């Protein structure tokens, strides 16, 4: 992920959006800033930092920070700690906001207003955005903004975060200059410990609501009706299984057409440029290195987009925490809680956002275990490797009339990853989780229809992060590999492919000694080296290695039959087993380092995953060999 930080938009006063989780804060942020937002991390922690800019009707340019949602100013997770630190002006490298916008859920004023009272005590200029007034109205709750303004002593405006123009009143309010003056009268809490006034605040809020005639509790009847099905002891888990099955089905079924299109476009580009350019090292670099390498990675973009689309829709709708609730007991069996479910689900797209999502787990041990097993979830980067090997070695055959052998093998690889993760978690539970007190306290928010804007912006941010990765690390490594595989040129009169005389060839042969017991030849060994940076690169690396071994341009097409001829089935199965476990992703290890604050955990992770991968491959290779898969 992008690690560049802090003050991405220069100048202009700084607003901070503060509110409870699920109060529609991020929707309001998206509405205010549109696409003008940057996502990075806060200094020293992998808490997502979202900053955007917008202008008021009078043309005043403002910066706005979307602070992580919190229930109070007593932080209990790294996320909430950031909100606390920024508001108190203690966050490293962050300026204290000039004005705080308290985003308040109009359908749940009791809880939201407590936070407003706590924020007010900070002494920062403060306004209240009464959000989701449309939903409140639909439930028959009308909140008088003026009366609430009088009660709270800070300006209150109505907003609707999910509706174009729903932020007009807030924008207009921010033009009032008097608003920005810091009041000198109230500065309680600054410098000292936070005031523990939850009970008193609660009483104050009750008083306010009573005077406004809003003290009646009207729960969201529709949410309760949906929950009777979703949380049903029998229907609930079945529904969850169906949802997960549908997602994985969609990831594979829907993605195949755009993936074929991307593959065709890459091949066409390679062939076209190959025809224009004169033969020589530059053409080889561009066609064999850059286009074949980057193209082999961009291919998974459709799968990543589809998986994240579903995760975002489930998140927006409010279903994800319910899924976590349903799985809590199951995860408890291996010493984790339902909270680990969301990070692990994200890890099926990519372990990096998965590991980052683990920050919502308050228990440090659970968080660490979740991080450690996240790479065992089959991420989309492994798919091209699996697809290549399965396509080349597993025959297309129907089993019992309804199942397809290739699909079944792929499913088996996913299951192997999950089983490995559960086993590791279970062992870690035995070793470390004795007498653990684990906190759940997880909100199940009211259901909402996901909006196109919020899902769209979320998807766009993930696509941008992925493309940056392709453009950066992966491209550089592909080029580097091409270089290693092309130089030095073979001596005059040498026989055999040129690559055997290159640095890569020599390196590959050395590595092949280590990997020979698990059935890898030198071509595989050399492809594993750049594959360390990112798994998917191994395919393009194999492509480059074999392309430079032979003379053809169309590596992607030729690779499958080539390896089918060159490798034994035992070798292919061994490589598949290797990929289930191997820690081949430097970005993941870098994320783990940031997340755990040191090099110990990334080394432990790399070590145990390598050992597991080597063991799995060794067993697979030997068993397959013994069973006659040598040919």
């Amino acid at each position, binding site marked *: 992920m992008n690690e560049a930080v802090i003050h991405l938009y220069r100048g202009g006063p700084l607003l901070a959006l503060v509110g409870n989780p699920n109060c529609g804060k991020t929707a309001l942020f998206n509405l205010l800033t549109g696409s003008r937002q940057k996502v990075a991390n806060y200094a020293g922690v992998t808490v997502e930092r979202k900053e955007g800019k917008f202008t008021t009707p009078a043309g005043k340019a403002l910066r706005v920070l979307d602070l992580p949602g919190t229930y*109070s100013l007593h932080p209990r997770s790294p996320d909430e700690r950031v909100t606390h630190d920024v508001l108190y002006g203690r966050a490293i490298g962050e300026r204290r906001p000039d004005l705080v916008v308290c985003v308040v859920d109009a359908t749940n004023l009791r809880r939201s207003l407590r936070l407003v009272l706590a924020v007010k005590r900070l002494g920062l200029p403060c306004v209240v955005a009464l959000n989701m007034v449309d939903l409140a109205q639909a439930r028959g709750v009308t909140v008088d903004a003026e009366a609430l303004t009088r009660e709270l002593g800070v300006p209150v405006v109505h907003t609707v975060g999910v509706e174009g123009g729903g932020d007009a009143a807030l924008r207009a309010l921010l033009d009032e200059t008097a608003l920005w003056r810091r009041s000198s009268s109230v500065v309680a809490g600054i410098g000292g410990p936070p005031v523990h006034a939850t009970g008193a605040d609660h009483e104050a809020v009750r008083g306010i609501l009573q005077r406004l005639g809003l003290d009646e509790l009207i729960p969201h009847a529709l949410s309760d009706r949906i929950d009777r099905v979703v949380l049903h002891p029998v229907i609930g888990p079945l529904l969850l299984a169906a949802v997960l099955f549908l997602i994985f089905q969609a990831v594979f079924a829907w993605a195949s057409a755009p993936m074929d299109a991307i593959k065709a476009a890459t091949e066409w580009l390679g062939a076209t440029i190959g025809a224009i350019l004169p033969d020589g090292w530059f053409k080889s670099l561009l066609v064999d290195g850059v286009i074949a390498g980057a193209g082999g990675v961009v291919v998974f973009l459709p799968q990543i987009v589809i998986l994240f689309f579903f995760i975002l829709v489930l998140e927006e709708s409010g279903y994800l925490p319910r899924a976590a609730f349903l799985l809590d007991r199951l995860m408890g069996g291996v010493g984790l809680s339902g909270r680990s479910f969301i990070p692990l689900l994200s890890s099926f797209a990519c372990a990096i956002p998965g590991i980052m999502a683990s920050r919502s787990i308050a228990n440090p041990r659970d968080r660490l275990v979740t991080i450690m097993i996240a790479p065992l979830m089959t991420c989309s980067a492994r798919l091209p490797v699996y697809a290549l090997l399965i396509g080349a070695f597993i025959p297309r055959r129907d089993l019992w009339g309804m199942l397809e052998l290739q699909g079944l093998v792929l499913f088996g690889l996913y299951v192997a990853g999950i089983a490995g993760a559960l086993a590791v978690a279970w062992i870690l539970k035995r070793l470390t989780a004795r007498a653990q007190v684990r906190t759940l*306290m997880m909100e199940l928010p009211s259901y909402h229809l996901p909006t196109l804007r919020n899902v769209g912006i979320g998807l766009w941010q993930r696509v941008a992060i992925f493309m940056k990765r392709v453009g950066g690390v992966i491209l550089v490594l592909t080029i580097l590999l091409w270089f290693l595989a092309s130089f030095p040129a073979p001596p005059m009169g040498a026989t055999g492919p040129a690559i055997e005389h290159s640095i890569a060839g020599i390196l590959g042969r050395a590595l092949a000694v280590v990997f020979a017991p698990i059935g890898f030849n030198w071509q595989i060994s050399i492809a594993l080296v750049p594959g360390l940076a990112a798994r998917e690169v191994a395919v393009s690396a194999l492509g480059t290695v074999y392309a430079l071994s032979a003379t053809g341009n169309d590596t992607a097409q030729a690779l499958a039959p080539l390896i089918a001829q060159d490798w034994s089935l035992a070798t292919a199965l061994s490589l598949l087993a290797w990929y289930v476990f191997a820690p081949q992703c430097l970005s993941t290890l870098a994320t783990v380092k940031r997340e755990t604050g040191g090099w110990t955990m990334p080394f432990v992770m790399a070590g145990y995953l390598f050992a597991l991968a080597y063991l799995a491959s060794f067993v697979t290779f030997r068993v397959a060999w013994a069973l006659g898969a040598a040919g």
Partner: protein
Amino acid sequence: MGIHVLSLVTEPMSLADAVLGEIFFVSHVVAPPGAPEWAQQLADIGFIAGERVALMARGVPGGDPLVVRVGLSTFALRLAEAACVHLASPDTETAR
């Protein structure tokens, strides 16, 4: 508990033992010695004396975790967490 019938009457009930769907009011929150931070955390999410609560659903298998309503919010709580929330009957609350 449950041996002396009398103790059932006088002992304050916790949210973990509440009847499904029935409305109660929070009397007070007591955190276990192993997790003193729970008191503040439960208060932060709304378990404050006098607040209306109800048990909405029990997880399967084993009746853990629970789904509870507090004020207008819905939370998933562990059995042990819900056991910290002591309840007052509706009558006591109206007498306040």
